[in-house]
C-alpha cells in the first residue's frame, strides 16, 4: 500500500545517542580550544563572508558539535579565511584553524569514502 512517505521528512530531532562525532573528535584533538565556545555569536557578527551571505560561523560550530557533517561541508565552503572571527573571539578560540581542520578532514573523508 502507499506509505504516505511517512519517513520523509525524517526526524529533525538531535539524537544525542546516535551522532557522527568523528569530525568533532578530530577537531578537538588538534584544536582543543574549540571546547570552550560559548556560542556568543561574535564570530558570526564580524564575519566577512557572513556580511555577504547567510554564512554563520557560530552555527558551523554547533553543527560540528552535533555531528552534522553533511550540512557543514556545504556551508564551510563559503568561508574566506580572513581571520576576523579569531580576533574577536572572547574565548580566544583559534576559529580559523577549526575551519582549516574541518576542511582537511572533510577532504580526507571524501577520498576515504570514494569507491575504489
Amino acid at each position, binding site marked *: *500500500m502507499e*506509505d*504516505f*512517505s*511517512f*519517513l*520523509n*521528512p525524517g*526526524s529533525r530531532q538531535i539524537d544525542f545517542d546516535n551522532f557522527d562525532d568523528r569530525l568533532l573528535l578530530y577537531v578537538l584533538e588538534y584544536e582543543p580550544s574549540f571546547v570552550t565556545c560559548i556560542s556568543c555569536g561574535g564570530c558570526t557578527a564580524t564575519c566577512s563572508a557572513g556580511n555577504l551571505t547567510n554564512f554563520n560561523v557560530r552555527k558551523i560550530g554547533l553543527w560540528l558539535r552535533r555531528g552534522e557533517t553533511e550540512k557543514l561541508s556545504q556551508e564551510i565552503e563559503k568561508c574566506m579565511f580572513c581571520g576576523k572571527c579569531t580576533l574577536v573571539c572572547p574565548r580566544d578560540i583559534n576559529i580559523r584553524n577549526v575551519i582549516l581542520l574541518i576542511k582537511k578532514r572533510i577532504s580526507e573523508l571524501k577520498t576515504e569514502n570514494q569507491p575504489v
Partner: protein
Amino acid sequence: METKTKTRWSEHNKEIADDHFFYLRSCIRQNFNPAAEKIFLSILQKNLGKDIYDDPRHTTCTGIGYHADIVPFETLQTVIARQFSLMAEKGYKNCAVSCITSFGCYNEVLATWKQFPDEMAKAGENLRKATGREFEMPENLSHSCDIIYKFRKEIARQARYRLVHRETGEPLKIVDHIGCHYAKIFPEKSVGGSEYSRVLTGMIEAWGGESVDYPERRHCCGFGFRHYLIKNNRSYSISNSRKKFVSMEPYRPDAILTNCPGCNMFMDRWQYTLAQIEGKTYGGGTNGIPVLSHEELAGLVLGYDPWKDLGLQMHQVDVEPLLQKIGIVYDPAQKFAGVNGKYINEPLFTGCFNPHN
C-alpha cells in the same frame, strides 16, 4: 489564563458534578465508535442511576474546524453559547462532554469569557441575533472520562470482570494515552494535571489492571487537525503515532486506553497502516495492541456484550486477545452480524496483516 500552583498536579482533584448531566456528543466518536457513546449513557443511567440528557438539537462544536483554522474564534464561541443555551433550556447545569477537542474548546471559551467579558458579550449578541437565544454558563464541565473516573469504584463494585489475566492472575498491563486537549491546555480542568494525569490510570487500577508508564506517554498521537485532514500531510500524524508505539513496545502492553475519540481511532488505524508499510507491529503479534476508550473499557468490565453493546467490531485491531485474557465470554459468530444477527458480509481482514497474503 494564569496557571500557577504550589501543589503537585498529580494531587489535583477537579470538581466533577455528581448527577444531572447534559450530554455533548463527539463527531469523531459517533463516526467511528458510536456504541461507546451509547454505552456511556447506559452506564450512567442503568448502572449508576444518574440523570443524563441526550439532546438531539445540539450540533458539532466546530472544534475540528476551529483548530484547522477555518472557523473563527467568534463562531466557535457562538456555537458553544448555543449548546449552553440548549442546556439551560432543559434545566441542566452540568456538561458531560464526549470529545476531547470539544472539551478543550469549551474550556478555552469559558476561560476567555472569564478573562475577557467583552468576548462573552459579543458571543451572546451573536447568538441572540442569529437564534434569539440566551445562554448561561454551565456550573460544571466534565469530560465523560472524568465522570467514569469519579464513579470508577462504583463500577468496580458492579464489575463482572477484572483487568487481570484469567490464567496467571497477573494484572493486565495497560498504557494510557491522554488526549492532548484534556489537560495540556488547562491542567486545572483535569484530574491529576497534564504530566501524570490520573483520570485513566485511576480506572485501570480500580478495575484491577496495572498502569504502565512509557517515555513517550505524553506525546501527541499526531492528529494535528490540518495534518490528518489533508492526505499529503498525513506523514506528520503517522510519524508521531509511530514514535509512541516504538516507545511503548518494550513494555509489552496488553491494551492501550485512551480518553479521546480521535486518538482512539488513530492509534487503532495507524497500527494497521504501519504494519502495512513496515511489515511489523509494535506488540500484540500480527494483530497489534487493542485500543479501547474509557467507555468501552468500563463497558467490558461491567459485562456488556463486546459486539452488540460496545461495537468493538468497528476497531481494526481485534480486541479478542484482550477479551480472552480477561476471560470475557463472547460469541465470535456475532462479531460482524447485522441487526438481529443477520449476516451482512465481513471485512476483508482484521488486525494488522491480511492472513491470506
